[in-house]
């Protein structure tokens, strides 16, 4: 039996007739029209360089069968992970926030919840992201600047003071030091007497994309994968509703990758983590249901929708075919989407609202589970309260005024979108094969392959922008020299850093120093044995009020540090 063709083209005879129609149309209507008025470009492509036809027909989807498309909530999940999608519940509106001391971010969280936000998302400052305490010399000028500073358990408690953690999901954007933050979160919940099985949320904890894109790292690659593995197995045991890793394409895209690279490199990372956990002896269906994903919504509207559909299908097939997953929950990909920060401009900042709206819509039509929309002041500073409110209202308008949520996967069956979905899936697979041929993701990182792929694409995009081939409204076209650039931006309290450092010194002065020493010694012992789960001694260490920097530095003695050989 041949693959059941796509609705619209039911047999070979129809396809032949359609192909003949296309030939006659090109000879008649099209040729005469082109002779009078040539098209504006010689070559039309998606943002990732996939060549585009001027019009698509059933012939272009002849290779995509019903088994490739199917129904939502059913394998291969092309149309979405759930059978009701936004009819059951709209996506989670999750605006990231974080700045200054934990008490300040706590206030912003309360404001966002009052405005109707349905999930929390924490942004940490650079020192916390990289595992430095606020009083470390490397932290000067960066404490509380791009996110909130967290040094010890007391900070974690202050961050969520008065917030009902059993009933709101909390996402934490943190990577090389993620396991320490997870330990602090668990310790804070236990101190409040909460039921760990009710905690829901996500830590990003995706170290592999750090080496290729975001560039926040501490330890060498292999021990870092081990730490991710430990958080996954720990969560499978104790935190059944928590996502211990959020494998992220977003930063790969922001570093300069195109849509296909973003999806493919994310799949390569997912495969590496899954292999690592399976190799430790845990069955794939035990942990795969809690793996979560994170993608950008860029500006090429249809390519983004097709990317989301393709990556869901590709993932389901990888889990079933390569890892032998049998549970639907293991195969259905759930992801968060953020609109593209790097697409936003300093010039004519109100235009950014429009860009963000269109990007957000592609995420919704692509079936995202949660969404962050960027502030119009993204190119200036972390968002002001007004910018955050407009961004949240953008989501609420899409969800409640446009009626796009009533029908699941509404672009399915579009000859163009189905063709592009299949094309992107094929290109993702080609990339994955290339990575395997290089010896896997770790080897390819060590060879600088991912880094070079991303840098090359970033350079090509910059060249296209500089030459005007790629339009950026307000920057290289429709420039308004007289416009006033000023927007009201968020101001950092200059005293915040000093207050955070004083607070840390006070915690260190008040704690039982011997208990800290014992906990750190235990951590050192655990780290030396790669088969021991680091989460347990880390939870003990944070409960003894060991700081993040102390934990990180203790493990540097055992695990070493990472230094990149830059590629440009």
């Amino acid at each position, binding site marked *: 039996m041949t693959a059941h063709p796509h609705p619209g083209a039911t047999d070979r005879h129809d396809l032949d007739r359609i192909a003949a129609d296309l030939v006659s149309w090109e000879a008649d209507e099209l040729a005469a029209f082109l002779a009078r008025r040539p098209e504006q470009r010689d070559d039309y492509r998606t943002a990732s360089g996939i060549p585009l036809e001027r019009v698509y027909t059933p012939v272009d989807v002849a290779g995509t069968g019903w088994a490739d498309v199917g129904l939502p909530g059913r394998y291969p999940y092309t149309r979405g992970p759930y059978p009701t999608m936004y009819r059951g519940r709209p996506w989670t509106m999750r605006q990231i926030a974080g700045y200054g001391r934990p008490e300040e971010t706590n206030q912003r969280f309360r404001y966002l919840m009052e405005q109707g936000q349905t999930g929390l998302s924490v942004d940490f400052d650079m020192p916390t992201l990289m595992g430095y305490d606020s009083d470390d010399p490397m932290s000067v000028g*960066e404490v509380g600047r*791009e996110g909130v500073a967290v040094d010890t358990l007391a900070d974690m408690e202050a961050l969520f003071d008065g917030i009902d953690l059993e009933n709101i999901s909390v996402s934490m954007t943190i990577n090389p030091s993620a396991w320490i933050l997870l330990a602090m979160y668990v310790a804070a919940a236990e101190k409040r007497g909460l039921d760990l099985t009710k905690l829901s949320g996500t830590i990003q904890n995706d170290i592999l994309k750090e080496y290729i894109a975001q*560039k926040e790292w501490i330890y060498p690659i292999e021990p870092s994968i081990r730490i991710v593995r430990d958080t996954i197995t720990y969560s499978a045991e104790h935190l059944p509703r928590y996502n211990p890793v959020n494998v992220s394409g977003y930063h790969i895209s922001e570093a300069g990758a195109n849509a296909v690279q973003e999806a493919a490199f994310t799949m390569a990372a997912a495969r590496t983590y899954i292999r690592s956990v399976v190799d430790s002896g845990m069955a794939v269906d035990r942990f795969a249901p809690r793996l979560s994903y994170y993608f950008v919504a860029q500006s090429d509207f249809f390519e983004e929708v097709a990317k989301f559909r393709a990556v869901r299908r590709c993932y389901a097939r990888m889990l079933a075919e390569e890892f032998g997953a049998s549970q639907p929950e293991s195969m259905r990909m759930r992801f968060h989407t953020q609109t593209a920060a790097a697409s936003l401009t*300093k010039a004519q900042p109100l235009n950014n609202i429009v860009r963000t709206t269109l990007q957000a819509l592609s995420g919704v039509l692509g079936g995202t589970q949660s969404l962050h929309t960027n502030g119009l002041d993204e190119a200036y500073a972390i968002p002001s309260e007004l910018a955050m409110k407009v961004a949240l209202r953008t989501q609420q308008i899409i969800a409640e005024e446009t009626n796009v949520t009533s029908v699941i996967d509404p672009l399915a069956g579009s000859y163009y979108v189905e063709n592009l979905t299949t094309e992107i899936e094929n290109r993702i697979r080609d990339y994955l094969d290339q990575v395997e041929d290089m010896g896997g993701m770790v080897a390819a990182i060590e060879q600088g392959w991912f880094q070079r792929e991303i840098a090359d694409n*970033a350079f090509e995009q910059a060249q296209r922008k500089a030459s005007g081939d790629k339009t950026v409204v307000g920057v290289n076209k429709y420039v308004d020299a007289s416009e006033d650039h000023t927007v009201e931006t968020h101001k*950092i309290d200059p005293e915040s850093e000093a207050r955070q450092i004083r607070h840390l010194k006070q915690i260190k002065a008040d704690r039982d120093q011997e208990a800290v020493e014992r906990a750190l010694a235990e951590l050192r012992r655990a780290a030396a044995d790669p088969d021991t789960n680091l989460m347990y001694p880390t939870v003990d260490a944070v409960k003894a009020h060991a700081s993040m920097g102390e934990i990180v530095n203790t493990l540097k003695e055992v695990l070493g540090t990472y230094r990149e050989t830059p590629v*440009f």
Partner: protein
Amino acid sequence: MAKTATPLRVMLAKVGLDGHDRGVKIVARWLRDAGMDVIYTGLHRTPEQVVEAAVQEDVDVLGVSLLSGAHMSIFPRLVDLLAAYEDLDVVLLAGGVIPDEDVDALKGMGVDGVLGQDSTPEEIVGTVRQLAGERHARAYG
């Protein structure tokens, strides 16, 4: 006059914990394509490491990229460290996300130029050449 005949030597650096290196790598290629010798330090360097490397490499221009918002803490440190070398006259450039209101303050403290995210390759290459030329005129009269 031999100095003008050899390619300009430019060091590009990332200081502090900021990992945004997309822009600095693109600038590195543009300057290299314009015929300059470009050295890129890589990420997460301290001001001390960067200045020491710039001295050792005998560069004409030092460009520091910051997207972390820490520029008002890091540039004064770089200016002080460079000033400690009395015979040295390196052009110091700032790049990345620098709010308009900080540009004058940076120039006032001794940063020679500030290039933002939307600078074209022509602006970047032109600024580097012009400031290096002025420096050369100062040094060799």
